[in-house]
């Protein structure tokens, strides 16, 4: 019987789900409804700091993996059965977004 590679993506989905459940409400509130937040200096400071970089990468990357995984399943739920190619595209998209975030963070010093 063929082993599924879901464990990799499910772990990322789970991590993203957990993170978004914990910090999602506060983050969205801050970016959407609190204009004082995220001033340039503070944002830059955060993005320059090692832990800060990690936090930003985690939020962007894991949110993407979480969201894309569910998006893919939702298509299936709506009766749109995407093949393995498109499935890879969803995860690939999340991976690309994560990579982009990592590159950007590396450039901020």
């Amino acid at each position, binding site marked *: 019987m063929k082993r599924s590679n879901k464990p990799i993506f499910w772990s990322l989905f789970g991590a993203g789900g957990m993170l*978004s459940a914990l910090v999602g409400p506060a983050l969205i*509130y801050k970016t959407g409804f609190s*204009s004082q937040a995220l001033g340039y200096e503070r944002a830059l400071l955060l*993005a320059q700091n090692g832990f800060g970089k990690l936090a930003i990468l985690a939020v962007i990357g894991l949110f*993407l993996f979480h969201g894309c995984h569910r998006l893919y399943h939702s298509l299936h739920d709506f009766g749109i059965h995407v093949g393995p190619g498109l499935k890879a595209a969803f995860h690939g998209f999340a991976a690309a977004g994560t990579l982009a975030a990592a590159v950007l963070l590396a450039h*901020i010093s």
Partner: protein
Amino acid sequence: MKTYIRPMSGWWKRNPFYLWYMLREASCVFITAYALMLLWGLYRLQQSRIQYEEWRESLSSPLSFAFHAFALVLVVYHSWTWFKIMPKTLPRMPLPDGLVVVGGVAAVVACTTALMVLI
């Protein structure tokens, strides 16, 4: 043996339980979009202060406001469902299910408070 197989189309409309499930799943659209929005902000931050401030400015547009409002509602629902089903997804725990849920909700409250103060 001849059998009849009923179609699945529109199944999520057949039972409120399924509608709530679909709502939960719909949160992913917003979480994905939100991550992309942050990614865009990161890009602008890496460019320069001016561009970053432009991005911040765009966050106060009506469109952004509406997006955030929907996203907030759905992500709160996502948080709630995430911890409500948590006892089923965790490895066997010596704790009663209710306590796991309460613990999860408490963690959300703690994280939210911390972030509200820190950011």
